[in-house]
């Protein structure tokens, strides 16, 4: 790419191709390495933080506790309810930290790639973990027919809309939910990374292409920096939303009423 710019030819906007760089070795790609790195970071962080827990926490323990409490109280307990949330704390915490760290990789220098912009990773979590879990606990709690009725027939709906409502609810609960869950974070990360690429590469192009365009280059870089802050917010937000919705699906599946 640099070669291309230096040669003074036309600016080529970044696109899908920038998300699929050639493998580092064999068939191992950068996002795969990052994914493994993320679980090592999270695992090491929590293991180190919980090695010697004290009733009166130190700074490090307090940080880990805040993170754990956020997943435990703000997401799991709020969405699933104080009665049932305990067994789901590890799942919700794992989802939140897993998505969060992989998103934040998009901002860390050198790494600079949000793993979740490859749809395979969020899809694995939503379709193969969250989806089976919430339907499983739902079937277990309400029985097969009971759960189907519980999920597809909203209480208080007049009978004549049911023929319309039941297929819609079924489609949403059993097909759409896991897909939208994955696509939401994937699209946000993909678009965000693309935006950063556009402004950064455009700035670089303007700077190196010579002529008067050099004056405009700082504007482009300024936008890239501003967008970086926005991205940081979005990355945290998306991780929160993913965990929140997962907990919400579980909570709805377990709820006595809607």
């Amino acid at each position, binding site marked *: 790419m640099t070669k291309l710019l230096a040669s003074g030819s036309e600016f080529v906007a970044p696109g899908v*191709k920038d998300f*699929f760089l050639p493998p580092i070795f064999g068939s191992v790609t950068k*996002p795969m390495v990052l*994914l493994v790195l993320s679980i090592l970071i999270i*695992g090491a962080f929590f293991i180190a933080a919980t090695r010697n*827990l004290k009733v009166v926490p130190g700074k490090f323990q307090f940080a880990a506790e805040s993170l754990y409490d956020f997943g435990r109280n703000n997401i799991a307990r709020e969405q699933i309810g104080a009665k049932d949330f305990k067994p789901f704390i590890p799942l919700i915490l*794992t989802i939140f930290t*897993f998505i969060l760290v992989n998103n934040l990789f998009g901002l860390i220098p050198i790494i600079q790639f949000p793993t979740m912009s490859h749809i395979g990773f969020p899809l*694995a979590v939503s379709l193969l973990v969250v989806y089976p879990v919430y339907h499983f606990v739902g079937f277990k709690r309400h029985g097969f027919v009971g759960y189907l009725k519980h999920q597809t027939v909203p209480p208080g709906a007049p009978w004549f809309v049911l023929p319309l409502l039941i297929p819609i609810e079924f489609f949403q609960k059993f097909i759409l939910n896991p897909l939208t869950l994955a696509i939401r974070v994937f699209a946000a990360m993909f678009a965000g990374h693309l935006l950063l690429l556009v402004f950064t590469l455009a700035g670089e192009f303007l700077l190196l292409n010579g002529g008067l365009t050099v004056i405009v280059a700082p504007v482009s870089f300024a936008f890239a920096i501003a967008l970086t802050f926005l991205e940081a917010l979005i990355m945290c937000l998306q991780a929160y939303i993913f965990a929140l919705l997962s907990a919400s699906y579980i909570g709805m599946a377990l709820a006595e009423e809607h």
Partner: protein
Amino acid sequence: MYDTLILAAGDEVNPVIPHTSEIILGLVAFLLLFFVIKKFVSPRFEALYAERTAKIEGGIEKAEQAQADAQRTLEQYKEQLAEARAEAARIRDDARAEGLQIVEEMREQAQAESARIIAQGQHQLDAQRAQIVAELRADLGRTAVELASKVVGESLEDESRRRGTVDRFLNELDAVAAPAGK
């Protein structure tokens, strides 16, 4: 050459189509992390929270216990104080009663003593009077006889006749004086 390679690759890749290898890796990595968190992280935190809750509740319980103890001790002291007061009052009453009794006894004793002293004095007085009367009687008899013998000129030497005369005279005197003395 390099760019065209990437471009060519980019044309083929559709970012919405997931790669099977990534799904598998994503799942495995997620499950590994989940295992670590479920096995090591969550139980430790939950144990810590349970311990913290227990400590706080224990502290509150201890404080309540101490308060109850203090309250009980206070009650005890109050009770003891009331008891002591009652006892003091009772002792005071007893002492007063006893004092009254003692005064009464003393008075009785004194009265008895004074009665006794008076009786004794009376007795002594009676004895002295009897003695004096006897002495006077003897003296008076002799003087009267002497006087009479001088007047009459006749000596009444005969003891028995003289005594009989004097006694008779004195008895007459007594008979006259006794009703008047009484």
